């Protein structure tokens, strides 16, 4: 440790003010504090502080994302093998295919995002915030595997600059940055973000076997609904809801496996980093709206699908666990969190059922509620104020 510290101290002046590379000060500072917790001490306040900091918190979220990411990598290889040969490949081979496909996306996302963050930090003279460690991984995880890399770069830049920095950087943004990136691409490049082809990359010069369809369950259901067909389990990819629970279905890179996502949820809740209130209320909201649809069923695919299926198909669980719980863009009061989550669940199902053009609802629902979160908080705060005013009268 001493040796490493000496080396850092030796090159530090080069990056400090007046040094040759002082324009890289923020970048150096970010790397230095990554390597070493600074030797600062407390001033003007509590003399001791809790062992937790934002680096540790963000790192925990990254850990929680890993199971879903690893499963997503394997799943891409698995689906590609099914598409090309009609048979499943071996575990390692599947994983390797997925890794090669996804790693460049992650590198582009981190590279572009961190580059912009560091430039802003240097320009505005503040330290680089750890928030992007999570955002930079979330962005690839909600992309289709076959996404062109330039789109990933563009979307990341958009999310960081327009979604975050113009509002004052981490902690000030009102939209979830990763979903902002996804929304940007979804609106600007819809064919690359939905349909049958984008989820599973088919190498050039090769073709899928006959009878293979890469359509997602939600896609199938939308088509069936438009054709006036009734609901049946055959509409699900793989023919059973269990495929969606395990995650061996097409979808955005890491959104498919409910099991892997629940492992992440357990990590987030166990570490106290993600709000279980939001996760639970989102699930309850989805179930509630699904149940309402079921009891008012009119023979349509969307109203007849069992309520809990909504949780397993599409990106519902991924959104409920990793996206709704972004503390900056979610409601910040305790009671507000319950309302916020519940409405996201309700809206997700509503969008799925009533929006013919767009089968998935969770992204829209979260972004929509991001906008309304401050309003929810406003009313919760008002109730506290009213309580205090009433006390005077009594």
């Amino acid at each position: 440790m001493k040796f490493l510290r000496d080396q850092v101290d030796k090159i530090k002046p080069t990056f400090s003010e007046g040094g040759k590379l002082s324009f890289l000060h923020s970048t150096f500072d970010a790397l230095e504090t990554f390597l070493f917790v600074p030797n600062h001490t407390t001033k003007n306040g509590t003399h001791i502080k809790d062992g937790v900091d934002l680096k540790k918190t963000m790192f925990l979220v990254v850990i929680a994302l890993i199971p879903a990411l690893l499963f997503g990598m394997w799943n891409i290889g698995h689906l590609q093998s099914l598409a090309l040969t009609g048979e499943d490949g071996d575990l390692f081979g599947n994983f390797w295919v997925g890794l090669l496909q996804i790693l460049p996306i992650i590198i582009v996302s981190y590279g572009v995002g961190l580059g912009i963050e560091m430039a802003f930090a240097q320009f505005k003279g503040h330290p680089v915030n750890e928030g992007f460690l999570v955002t930079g991984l979330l962005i690839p995880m909600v992309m289709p595997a076959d996404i062109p890399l330039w789109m990933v770069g563009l979307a990341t830049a958009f999310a960081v600059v327009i979604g975050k920095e113009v509002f004052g950087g981490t902690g000030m943004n009102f939209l979830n940055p990763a979903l902002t990136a996804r929304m940007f691409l979804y609106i600007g490049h819809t064919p690359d973000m939905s349909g049958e082809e984008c989820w599973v990359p088919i190498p050039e010069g090769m073709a899928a076997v006959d009878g293979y369809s890469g359509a997602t369950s939600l896609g199938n259901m939308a088509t069936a609904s438009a054709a006036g067909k009734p609901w049946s389990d055959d509409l699900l990819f793989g023919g059973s809801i269990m495929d969606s629970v395990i995650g061996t279905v097409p979808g955005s890179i890491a959104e498919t496996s409910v099991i892997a996502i629940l492992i992440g949820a357990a990590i987030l809740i166990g570490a106290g980093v993600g709000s279980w209130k939001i996760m639970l209320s989102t699930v309850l909201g989805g179930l509630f709206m699904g149940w309402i649809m079921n009891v008012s069923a009119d023979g349509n695919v969307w109203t007849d699908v069992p309520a809990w299926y909504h949780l397993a198909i599409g990106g519902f669980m991924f959104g409920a666990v990793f996206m709704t719980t972004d503390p900056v863009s979610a409601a910040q009061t305790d009671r507000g969190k319950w309302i916020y989550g519940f409405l996201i669940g309700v809206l997700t199902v509503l969008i799925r059922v009533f929006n013919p053009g767009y089968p998935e609802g969770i992204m829209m629902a979260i972004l929509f509620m991001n906008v309304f979160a401050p309003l929810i908080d406003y009313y919760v705060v008002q109730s506290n104020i009213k309580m205090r005013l009433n006390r005077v009268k009594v």
Partner: protein
Amino acid sequence: MDDSKEQNFLRGCLLFSQSHTFAAKFIKHFMGKNVKIKHGMDISLEGVAEKNVIIANAPVTYAVKPKDFKGLLPKMKVKVGDKVKAGECLFTDKKNDQICFTSPVSGTVEEVLRGDRRAILEVVVKADEAQESASFDVSDYQNKSGDEVKAVMLSAGVWPFIVQRPYGVLADTDIAPKAIHVSGFDSAPLAADLYVTLNGEEENLKVGFEVLRKLTEGDVHLNLHSNFDSSIYSKVEGVIRNTFSGPHPSGLVGVQINKIDPINKGDIVWTIKPQHVAFIGRLFTQGNLDLSQTIVVAGSEVSMPAYYSTKLGANLHSVLNNNISSENVRVISGNVLTGTKVNNDGFLGFFDNGISVIPEGDEYELLGWLVPSYARPTLSSTLPISKFFKKKFKANTNPHGEERAYVVTGQYEKVMPMDIMPQQLIKSVMTKDLELMENLGIYEVIEEDFALCEFVCTSKINVQEILSEGLALMEEES
């Protein structure tokens, strides 16, 4: 039932219900409340004091520090070289000349230490061998009026022990407060066990509370903890005893006020610590100022953590000399959450009855955010070993991370038992929104009430400092 019977019956019901509500009020009035504090945390640190009292060498110098009083502008009444007796005025409050800050001992004024912009930091008195005290007329104090005891308290220098809320400032001499609250225990990390420090003070406490009762037409609340021995208060009469249970900050008087009888806009409430009530009791029993007190000296870097018998304003050399076990330490007058950093040969703060000595944390820690090299106190389950396995911590002054913008939410609420929205209140101060600050209850809190929030803050924000700005702003506007 005929008419008259019915009337009698109804009258009976009415009488019963009236007597019932009267009884309820009566019971409520004298029984006090039972309050369970759920949101909070005890921080257990190494170096808890042994419960024996060591008689410290009498220090040579004593000091009164104007900075211990919020917003005080001192007006000097003595010069360097002047002789003073214990209880004689050193300086007064520029805004209210009645409020005297007196010398704890008899001796010679040795130094008036000034800091930035000539602000007075310390008025140091070198003690004489033979102690002399100014005497005060306390004869027949039982029959004295509120104004009469007030005059004695002001001239003897025990008035400044009273803290006034809102804002936590010196008590206004022209006002009778809505209530006076005394927290009968201290729940802060390494805090003194008052059963030890106030042992033998039963009679002084009784007299002290008797005097306090003359200062308000409202109630005097004595707030106790179900786990702490409160036999020292056995002789105290005429107060409402409320019982608290649960972790720190249950011992903070601000939390107790919020649970018992919250401060609304326009209310004035006074608070005072029990050791200071004992000083007042002593003054009215003996007729002179005697600020002898037992203090706790604790912390992982203290060789002999124990209780020491000394005096208010004492130079710490007498208790810390040869009593600190390592080189690079921070000496704190008060506790690790709200105390003031002092030098090894600095002086005990006016309101403090304890010294904490902990290691400084000015060392780099390789990947410390990822794999901590030693256990540290935490509320967060992201450090499972620290949270679930370690019992006592050797905490240092490293903040374990850098300041960041607010990201995490719901964290302050876990350690804030008052019905106040902590993060929203702090944000309203940051945006200097006076109306919102008022609406969110800034009148009810002072800095110490937010110390735990500051401790647990993931973004390492200096919450107490921000709140302090808000309180100053509110006071300025009012």
